[in-house]
């Protein structure tokens, strides 16, 4: 019944809810009581049936009894009792059955402990009148005279006695009486209410009073005080706070329920892990040694200085140390161990009677690997010692393996480093907290800072001013989303254009940075040249629109001047001329507007602007018999540079006209995107022209790409894409060359605010 419970309890921590654990512990405790009762009753029945085979040996009763009595030491101490043990060496050997003697001593001590709430418990073994006399005196509640004669009766319990517990079977003292009788001795009780009780056991020296066939002469030093466990265990349960460590050890050992933790008992030898124990308490040393000795080579010393010396002589796999010790205390030992290279890595568990979290954190802060507060259970100790030793061994193994791995990694890293140093691009690696873990010389050059000032800093510290460039959002996005980002911007501190590709990984971000300043300068030049050329082309177009009416005006004035006809006709010539001049001024006013100041963004009515562009191309549109269809919604103004917008739509409309040599339809659509989308306008320029072959579409926005070698410069659409990108907009193209539905549509998304940063030049985004 108890075995499975032990199993459950030993595995409890991770799997069982605390309530269940408490219930199982209760069952376990009651189980233990029942076990003790049953065992005692069995003892009786065996005795009475004559089946109990007492085996009497000559025993050093003083030593034996002192050892037994010391088992109660900590229980007594914890109960605040003054516990005195006087075991004088006896002049002659006493023949006892060790198990029975244990039961006698322990029952008496248990009884004294149970009924003594304060004061003294005193055990004395001495030689009195040719007999060995054991007395257990307490300052307990006492027994009334009427009750006294009945204390040795089976199942007799004294009603109303104030003790530590009401638990009790009333069988302990009866057993003592029986056992003493088996030894040819006597037991007496003296008591006074409120003063205390003394039990006195007397056993004759020698063996003459014992049956000769039950005398053993071998000197079997039996397994010490294992039978003490249930008594101490029980006694401790009567105390608030439960059993303490060392008693628990004994109990646990006795019940052999620690098999899973102890594992196979390992043969002593060099292969076993070594534990160094430092404790000034001899009992503690012995118990711990006994417990751990089954599995480990235990060296026990009584103070920190000796422990340090032992640790240096032969570094252990684990150090268990008490906190309070003479000469060198636990903390000093810990510091010495940590300060010494040979022992710095050895796990240290500190043991202390000082309860409370304070000392635990003190120990952990001092660098202990673990801290066990007495009382601790054997299970606890074994589990923690076991786990720290295996962790230590694992670490040692890993350390040696890590060395190999590190060598390998370093070799690989050197190769990678060589590659990274040799590439022309800057390379920088930042961890997830943006600290620069690696950077090559090229990065330093790009950032115009010494390499030494980059490493170990955050990206923002390493490259001051980077926050002002638009790299930062791109990097953050890469880190956050795990997606590769490409970005290009001007880095002010080094006055360079940088193209950066950021590759995220679980450890951080690898950034490859390229100096594209030269390319940008070329592009800027090209853009400027193209702007001028576009202006020129536009001027020519406008010239046509102006020159035609001027021609009419000149002719009309000539006619008026030279006509001999009457004044009314002359007036009519002049009126017509005036109308033509109005036309000229209208065109000039509307088409030359964009020649004015173009570096200041303004709110622009896009449909009106596109009408102006159409005005400019009126002749060409008419010349090519192109019908214009408008699908224009009422839309808000956009903030942009008039000249840029003009150029973009001029280029698109001009392209459309070129595509429709034999006439067609040019459709202009302007609307706002669906709700929930970006704020801005969608503008589509749709023609029914010859269309663009699919294979050309990907190259459409490349500079100098043209399908009209005799007419085009190949810059028109490139300029369009550059401007659209600089606005933060997008351009899409769809085209069809099938005769049925041929034509091309350019769709531009134009943000509500499309003016680029005034300080900076347009910055294309690679699409």
């Amino acid at each position, binding site marked *: 019944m108890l075995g499975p419970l032990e199993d459950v309890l030993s595995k409890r921590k991770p799997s069982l809810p605390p309530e269940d654990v408490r219930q199982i512990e209760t069952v376990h405790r009651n189980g233990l009581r029942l076990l003790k009762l049953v065992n005692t009753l069995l003892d009786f029945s065996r005795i009475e049936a004559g089946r109990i085979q007492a085996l009497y040996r000559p025993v050093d009763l003083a030593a034996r009894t002192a050892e037994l009595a010391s088992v109660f030491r900590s229980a007594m101490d914890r109960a605040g009792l003054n516990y005195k043990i006087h075991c004088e060496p006896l002049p002659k050997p006493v023949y006892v059955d060790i198990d029975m003697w244990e039961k006698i001593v322990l029952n008496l001590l248990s009884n004294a402990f149970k009924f003594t709430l304060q004061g003294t418990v005193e055990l004395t073994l001495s030689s009195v009148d040719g007999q060995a006399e054991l007395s257990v005196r307490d300052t307990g509640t006492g027994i009334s005279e009427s009750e006294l004669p009945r204390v040795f009766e089976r199942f007799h319990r004294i009603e109303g006695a104030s003790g530590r517990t009401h638990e009790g079977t009333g069988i302990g003292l009866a057993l003592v009486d029986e056992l003493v009788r088996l030894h040819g001795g006597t037991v007496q009780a003296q008591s006074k209410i409120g003063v205390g009780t003394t039990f006195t056991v007397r056993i004759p020296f020698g063996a003459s009073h014992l049956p000769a066939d039950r005398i053993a002469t071998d000197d079997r030093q039996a397994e010490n005080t294992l039978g003490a466990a249930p008594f101490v265990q029980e006694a401790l349960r009567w105390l608030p706070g439960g059993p303490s460590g060392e008693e628990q050890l004994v109990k646990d050992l006795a019940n052999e329920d620690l098999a899973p933790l102890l594992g196979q008992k390992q043969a002593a030898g060099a292969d076993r892990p070594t534990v160094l124990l430092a404790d000034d308490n001899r009992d503690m040393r012995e118990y711990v040694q006994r417990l751990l000795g089954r599995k480990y080579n235990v060296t026990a010393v009584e103070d920190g200085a000796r422990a340090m010396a032992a640790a240096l002589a032969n570094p252990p796999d684990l150090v268990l140390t008490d906190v309070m010790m003479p000469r060198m205390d636990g903390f000093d030992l810990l510091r010495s161990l940590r300060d010494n290279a040979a022992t710095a890595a050895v796990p240290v568990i500190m043991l202390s009677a000082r309860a409370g979290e304070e000392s635990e954190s003190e120990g952990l802060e001092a660098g202990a690997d673990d801290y066990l507060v007495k009382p601790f259970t054997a299970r606890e100790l074994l589990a923690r010692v076991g786990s720290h030793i295996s962790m230590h061994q694992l670490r040692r193994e890993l350390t040696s393996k890590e060395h190999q791995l590190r060598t390998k990694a370093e070799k690989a890293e050197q190769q990678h480093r060589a590659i990274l140093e040799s590439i022309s691009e800057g390379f920088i690696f930042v961890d997830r907290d943006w600290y620069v873990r690696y950077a090559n010389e090229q990065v330093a050059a790009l950032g115009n800072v010494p390499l030494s000032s980059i490493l170990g800093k955050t990206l923002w510290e390493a490259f001051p001013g980077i926050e002002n460039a638009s790299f930062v959002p791109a990097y953050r996005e890469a880190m956050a989303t795990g997606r590769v980002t490409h970005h290009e911007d001007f880095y002010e501190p080094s006055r360079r254009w940088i193209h950066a590709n950021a590759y995220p990984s679980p450890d951080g971000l690898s950034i490859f940075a390229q100096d594209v300043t030269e390319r940008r300068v070329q592009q800027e030049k090209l853009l400027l040249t193209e702007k001028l050329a576009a202006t020129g*082309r536009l001027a*020519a*177009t406008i*010239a*046509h*629109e*102006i*020159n*035609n009416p*001027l*021609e*009419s*005006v*000149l*002719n*009309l004035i*000539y*006619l008026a001047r*030279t*006509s*001999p*006809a009457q004044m009314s*006709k002359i007036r*009519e*010539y002049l009126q*017509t001329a005036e*109308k*033509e001049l*109005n*036309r000229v001024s*209208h065109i000039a006013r*509307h088409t030359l507007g964009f020649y004015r100041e173009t570096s200041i963004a303004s709110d622009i009515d896009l449909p009106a602007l596109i*009408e102006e562009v*159409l*005005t400019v191309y*009126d*002749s*060409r549109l*008419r*010349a*090519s*018999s192109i019908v214009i269809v408008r699908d224009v919604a009422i839309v808000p103004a956009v903030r942009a540079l008039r000249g840029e917008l003009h150029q973009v739509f001029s280029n698109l409309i001009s392209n459309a006209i070129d595509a429709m040599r034999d006439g067609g339809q040019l459709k202009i659509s302007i609307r706002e995107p669906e709700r929930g989308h970006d704020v801005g306008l969608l503008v589509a320029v749709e023609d029914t022209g010859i269309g663009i072959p699919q294979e050309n579409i990907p190259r459409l926005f490349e500079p100098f790409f043209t399908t009209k070698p*005799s*007419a085009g410069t190949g810059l028109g659409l490139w300029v369009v894409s550059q401007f659209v990108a600089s606005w933060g907009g997008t351009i899409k193209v769809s085209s069809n060359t099938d005769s049925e539905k041929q034509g091309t549509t350019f769709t531009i998304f134009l943000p509500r605010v499309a003016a680029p940063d005034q300080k900076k030049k347009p910055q294309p985004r690679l699409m």
Partner: protein
Amino acid sequence: MLDRTALLSSEFLPAEFLSSDDQSRPFSEQSGISPNAGSHTRLRVLVVDDERLIAETVAAILNVNGFEAVEAFNGEDALEAAHKLQPEIVLSDVLMPKMSGVELGIRIRQEFPETKIFLFSGQAATSELMRKAQADGYAIELFPKPIHPEDLIAKLRGL
């Protein structure tokens, strides 16, 4: 934007321009200047421009200055008129719907090899068309718009 159709509609022209039944020759007939009819010295000029006002005023000016001028407003009409008129000179705008001045010139040259072709244009963009025509062996002279009527007359007389 001005409505060009409205601009070119009859209400913008002097009423006398429209009094003639012959819409193709309003200016020359109605300008009040007596044409030098029947004279062998009168050069026949076909004036072509999709801007009606230009075609009409140029034709009117030429008619009062000793030419026999007829106007047309597109390439097709011009070819038809050329068959009637047998012009010595064709004066045409370059940028016109359907058939450009360059194309018209080439067609005229093919049918009437003796006819001289003058193009006038308001923009330099036509130079591409001109280069192409010249490369094909057609010597076509180009006047810029606007050209002063006296300069035009002098040019045509100087032929």
